[in-house]
C-alpha cells in the first residue's frame, strides 16, 4: 500500500484502528454473550442474570447436545442442503449470468429475460400458493424441496452478470478470435477471472441455506427432516402472542426456554460458518489483481 507519513495521515490511521476496534468488540459481544449463557448455571441464565460474564459453570448443555441424535441428524441434513444447494445454485446462477451479460446485439432476447427475472424477484403469489405448488410436486419432506424451494436467486444472478459485464471486452474478443464458443469462454475465461465475486456469491448462498429455517419448517412433515436451524428454532421460546397456555404447556415452554441449552445449540450451529468463512475470505481480502489480457 501507499505509505503516507504526514501527521494527518498518521492520526487517521490510529483513529481508524480504534474505530474498527470498537466495531470489532461490539460485533463479538453477541457471540460472547451467547457463549457465556451456554456455559452458565441454568437458573441464573433463565433469570436473565447473565450479561457480560458467565455465572456459575456447567457443560451440561453441551453434553446433552452430543447425546442428542436428532441434533446431529438435523446437522447432517443442513450440511447436505448447503453443499447441494450451493453447488447447484452457483452453477445455475453462473449459467444464467453469462448470457444475460451479453450485449443486446449479441443476444436479442436478453432484455426480455432480464425483466422476467426482475419481475419474478419482486412478485410472488405468497406463502400459500408457493406451499401448495411444492406440495403438488410431491416434494414435501425431500431434500430437493429445501434446495430448490427458495427459487432462483435473482439478486445473485444480477450481481454476477454485472461483474461479467465489467470485465474487459478484450477478454471475450480474444477468446472468440481463438475459436472458442460461449461455453468455453464462460468456463475457461470468465469464471477464472471472477473468483472474488463467485466466492462472495458462494458465501451468500451457503449462508442462506445454512441459516434458513422457515422453509425447513413448512416443507417438512416431521422433525427428522428438519435442517439444523429449523430444529434449533423450535427450541427457542416463541410463545405466540394471544394464546391461552395451560400450565402443562407453560411448563413445556419453560423447558423450551432453557436458555443455556438453547444458547449452546445456537453456538454450535454457528461453528461451520465460522470455519467456512476464513476459507473463502482469502479470495476477497488479498487484493491481487486477476488480469490476463495484454494491452
Amino acid at each position, binding site marked *: 500500500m501507499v505509505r503516507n507519513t504526514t501527521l494527518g495521515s498518521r492520526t487517521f490511521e490510529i483513529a481508524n484502528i480504534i474505530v474498527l476496534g470498537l466495531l470489532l468488540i461490539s460485533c463479538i459481544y453477541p457471540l460472547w454473550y451467547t457463549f457465556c449463557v451456554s456455559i452458565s448455571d*441454568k*437458573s*441464573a441464565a*433463565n*433469570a*436473565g*442474570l447473565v450479561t457480560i460474564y458467565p455465572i456459575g459453570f456447567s457443560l451440561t448443555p453441551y453434553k446433552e447436545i452430543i447425546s442428542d441424535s436428532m441434533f446431529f441428524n438435523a446437522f447432517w441434513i443442513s450440511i447436505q442442503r448447503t453443499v447441494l444447494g450451493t453447488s447447484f445454485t452457483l452453477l445455475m446462477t453462473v449459467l444464467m449470468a453469462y448470457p444475460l451479460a451479453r450485449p443486446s446485439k449479441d443476444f436479442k432476447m436478453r432484455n426480455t429475460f432480464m425483466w422476467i427475472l426482475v419481475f419474478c424477484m419482486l412478485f410472488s403469489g405468497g*406463502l*400459500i400458493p408457493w*406451499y*401448495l*405448488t411444492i*406440495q*403438488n410436486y410431491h416434494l414435501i419432506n425431500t431434500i430437493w424441496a429445501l434446495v430448490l424451494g427458495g427459487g432462483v436467486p435473482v439478486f445473485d444472478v444480477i450481481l454476477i452478470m454485472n461483474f461479467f459485464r465489467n470485465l474487459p471486452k478484450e477478454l471475450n474478443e480474444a477468446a472468440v478470435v481463438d475459436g472458442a464458443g460461449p461455453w468455453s469462454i464462460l468456463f475457461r475465461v470468465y469464471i477464472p477471472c471472477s473468483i472474488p465475486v463467485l466466492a462472495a456469491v458462494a458465501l451468500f448462498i451457503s449462508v442462506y441455506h445454512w441459516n434458513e429455517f422457515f422453509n425447513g*419448517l*413448512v416443507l417438512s*412433515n*416431521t*422433525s427428522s427432516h428438519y435442517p439444523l436451524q429449523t*430444529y434449533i*428454532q*423450535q*427450541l427457542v*421460546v*416463541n*410463545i*405466540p*402472542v*394471544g*394464546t*391461552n*397456555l*395451560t*400450565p*402443562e*404447556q*407453560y*411448563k*413445556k*415452554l*419453560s*423447558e*423450551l*426456554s*432453557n436458555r443455556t441449552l438453547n444458547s449452546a445449540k445456537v453456538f454450535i450451529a454457528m461453528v461451520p460458518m465460522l470455519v467456512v468463512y476464513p476459507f473463502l475470505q482469502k479470495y476477497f481480502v488479498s487484493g491481487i489483481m486477476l488480469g490476463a489480457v495484454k494491452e
Partner: protein
Amino acid sequence: MKKNMAMLLSVALLGASLTACSSSNDSSNNVKASSKPESSSESPALSGDDLAFSKFPKPVDVHIGMVVDPTDKTLPEGDSVSNNQYTRYLKEKYNINVIVDWTAATGNDFKQKVSLTIASGKLPDGMVVDDRSFMTKAASSGLLYDITDVFQQYQSSQVKDIMASTDGRALENASYKGKMVALPNITVDTDGVHVLWIRKDWLDKLQLPVPKTVADIEKTAQAFIDNKMGGDKTIGIAGPSKNSFPYSTFLVSSNNMGGFDPIFGAMDAYPGYWLDNGDGSVSYGTTSDNTKKTLALLADWYKKGLIDPEVGTRDNVGDPINANQTGIFFGPWWNGGYGNGDSFKNDPTANWQAYPVYSDDNKWNAHMKTTGSTYTIISKNAKPDVVKAIMIMNNALVRDEATFDLSVAVGWYPLRNVMAAANETEYEYTELLKVLKGETNPEDYNKPNSLYKLMYADAKKVKDVIKPPYDELGVSNFSTANFGDFQRLYSIMIGDRPFTTTPIDKKVYSVTYNQTPTMETKWANLKKMEDETVMKIILGQASIDSFDKFVKDWKSQGGDEITAEVAELLKK
C-alpha cells in the same frame, strides 16, 4: 419462438395441474354426519359405555397432525410419535391405527403448520388446534365434520358428566352456527382465577401482615423497595412483558401470568370482558369508569416506582420473578411452582404464597374463564368409522389417563385434548390435605373410572414431598428432590389454596368468549388502540384524560356496532 412456446406450454400444464389438485377437494365424496344410530353389521346395537369403548372389527386408520414437545425425552428407545405405548394401546384395545401425517413443535411452529393445512383445504382426519379462530375459519370454509350426533351417541358417561358440569358452555364453545364441529377442551376453572403471589419470607422479615386490599399492596410494595429486599434493583410489583397482557380478555381469558387482573377485580373493573348490564344491554369492560380509575391507580404506582420500570417492554415476564428481584406479582394458581421453578432454584428460601385481593368492602371479585381453548377438529372427508374412532380415542383418554405409565409423557397420546373436571385442582387440594393428615389413604383413590385422573398418583407421592407441620404450608415444608413433583404439588397446595378455601364473592363471566361477525374485520384495530392506550397511561406517556378520547374513538371505529352484536347474543 420454440423456447417461448415450450415455456408457455409448461406454465399452462402446471397451472392446469394446480387446478386439478385443488378442485379435488370439493369434488370428492361429501361425507355427511350420520343421522341415525348405526349398528355394527352383525352384532346387536351397542349403546352407552359399551358403544363408547367398542373395538372395531377391522383396523381403522386415523390420520392425524400432531403437536409435539421437542424437549421431551421420555420416549423409550425405539419408540416414536407413531409407535409408542399410547398408539399400541389404541391398536390393541380398539383396533385403531394411528398414522401421524405430520408433527410440529408447540408454539408458533404448530400454529404455522395448522394454518397452512387449513389454507390448503386438506385436513388430516383429526388434529387439535389451539386457537378458536382456526376452528371457525375451517368451519366457515366447510372443511369440518358435523359431529353433533356422533358425539351424542359415542360419548362415554364420564365425558357426558364433564360436559354437563359446564352447563352447556363447552358445547357452545365447540359449535359453529349451531352445529358441534369439534371436541371441546375443558380445563380447570382455576386457570382463570388470578391471585396475588407474594414473598411471604420478605413479609416475615419486615414483620408485615399479608396485604389484603389494593392500598395494602401499595404499602407493602413500597416497604419491599425501601428495604431492598430483592437487592439494589428491587422491584415492588412485576408486570406484563412485551408479549403478555395487563389483563386477560374475553378471547384469551385465562393463564395470564404477570398481569394486573386481581387489581382490576378489586376495583370492580373487568376490562377486556363483555358485561351484562342487566337491562338487556352490554358494555365492554375496558370502557368503564372503574377501569379508568384502576388505570389511574396503576399509573400512580408506576410513577412512584412501585411497578417494574421496564413493564411492557421486558423480553420475558418471568425474568424478575425468577431472579428474585420482585416480591409481588399476579397470576393463576400454577404460577408459583410450575411457573417460577427457577426462582426456587436461585433461592431455596423463597416462600411464595398466594392470596386473593379484596376490594375495599372486603369482597373478592374475579372474572372467570371460558371452558377451554383447544379444539379437536375432524375433516369433513373423514370416513364415518374414523370419526367414531376419534370419539372413542377421546373417551379412552379421559377414562384411562390415570392408568397409564406416566413416565412416558401423556402428551404423546394422539389427539390429546384435555377434558378435566372443572374443579379438579380444588378436589386434589382438599383430598391431598386429608392424605397428609392421615385422614385418608392413597389407596382410597385408586379408582379406575374416577373423574380425577391424577389424584391417585399424587396421593402416593405427597407424603414424600411435603413434610409436617401441615397447617401453614410454606416452601420449607417441601422437598425438591424430585423437582417436577415439587413444582406440581407446590402449585396445587399453595397456588390453589385461595380458590379452594375462599369463596369468590362476585364471579363475572363474559357475555361471550368468541368473536362476532363484525369483530372479524374490526377487532384487530380496536384491540391495538386498547393495548396502546392502556400501556401508555400506565407508563405515564399519556395522561389519564386520554382515556376518554380512547373510549370515544373506540365506539366510533366499530365498538358500538360490535356492542350491539354482543347484546343480540343475550337474547338467546
